[in-house]
């Protein structure tokens, strides 16, 4: 399991997909916050096949049958 113990009292099980920019948050610039968040989710270092799960839904095509 790729978790990390932050202290004796907290274990990170999954990292946040993005972190809100403190300066933008303090200034209440919400559009910039959203832009940055989405850029990180879809274009940043977290870009991976699992990103498609952000849009998964119950009508997703079924997987092909096993071998």
């Amino acid at each position, binding site marked *: *399991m*790729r*978790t990390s113990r*932050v*202290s*004796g*009292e*907290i*274990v*990170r*099980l*999954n*990292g*946040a*997909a*993005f*972190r*809100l920019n*403190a300066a933008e*948050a*303090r200034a*209440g610039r*919400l*559009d910039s*916050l*959203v832009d940055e*968040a*989405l850029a990180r*989710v*879809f274009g940043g270092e*977290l870009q*991976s096949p*699992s*990103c498609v*799960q*952000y*849009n*998964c*839904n*119950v*009508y*997703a*095509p*079924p*997987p*092909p*049958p*096993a*071998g």
Partner: protein
Amino acid sequence: MLRTSSFTIFVNLSENEHEALLVHGYTGAYDKVSRPIADFLRSRGGKTAAKPLYGSWSEEPGTREPAEAPPDTVIDHLYAQGYLTELSQEQEEAFFERLATRLHQRARQQPPSYIFMPTYDCNLRCSYCYQDHMRSDCSLHHLLRAMKRPMVDRIFAALPKIEALHGGEQGARRRRSFGFFGGEPLLAANRPIVEYILARALEMGEADVWAVSNGTELGAYRGLLGQAGISMVQITLDGTPRQHDQRRIYADGSGSFEKIAAGIDVTLEQGAAVSLRINVDRNNLEDLPAVARELEARGWASHPCFSAYTSPVRAGNEKTDPRGTLSTWDLDRELTRMRTEHPEIEILSRPDEGLRVRARRIFDVGGEILPSLRPSFCGAHDRMYIFDPFGDIYACWERTGDPEVRIGQVLPGGEVELREEQLAIWRERTVASNPVCRRCRYALHCGGGCAVLALGRNGSFNSNYCDGFAARFKASLAESYREHVAGNAPAMLRDKVCDL
């Protein structure tokens, strides 16, 4: 001062009162924390979070002591994960609304998925069918005509135009999704038109092709079922042969179990997957252990291409007594309870198995997984196009057959005429489009619930259908974490076609 995000979810661990899980509603963070840290976060919370209009959120335990601030390293971590924020409650709600809207806009740019309805006709007369009126009301008899080849050609001429609306290049070769739905799409009499649709679909390139069928006439589909054709069929049984034959019946009142069983055998033999749906209400709930034994005895349960799941019967017409139905949460709890006494029913997926499997993946793999955050509930709100035999296009199969609610139509030359008003109703329903979901910490995990069920309950599409989601989410996470800690093997889960 930092405040606790309004989108922080606290999950109690029933066998571990010293720790709790934290989940963030829009950053996707998961953590395990000591009770003092959970209490600290609760003490930094703002006003009470929005309550759903109905249903229940399990009560959060109160803080024990005025919470003491943890060390800076912990505060920094809680901030990085999103549990602590500088945004006011109002700013955070506004941020969430914009984030969900943008996520949905992106979802709407995904390649479309297509569903063909070769006919609204069906050979069964199940009492609870939401399409019952189509077969029993003579004024709707015209709906029972089957799709014809010229209509199929017309629809396939329209597909590149639909794909262009989603940003796709004309003629691009990519893997597409095609489904068959009805009525009963796989009636023996429909084979020629289904075969034609399938051939046209595969001409476009690789495709995942699936069908929702009652399974009674699948013997007529040999050669079309399998990995190169219809690779997955969802088939419904309503219990043991005796129970089923009282519920899923032909017009003459005779039962359909053995015909469906033969259809399942054919499908598996042809190499296609069977996703068996078992509709459950209070009348057949206690029969589920016998159903599980039946699946075992017929050799299906151990087949690698076979899976079975349970789904609550909804009161979809006036013949269905709502008092006999179960909510998703009720059904999940009942199945969990029954597993202790009847371990054989573990082959039947509970309604919330998907929540558990996704949580388990995070616990087992962890790190940087993006959880399945859903700005809307299902494909009806972003990319699904359902074509009926008349060229009418619908967003949701629960609302087909009524041209008043179609989102468009395919014109004789293959042009697509979309109805902006209906399109907006369906495609703009998100967790940001109603005030309850907009303030709900679970919203991006739940998607706002089914629009059709929300309309039925609240009289408005743009309203929430919670279906006990908060309680279900927390219970599922707690169970998954317990299983993870115990080192038990995770459940396997095949995708369902639709939860409704």
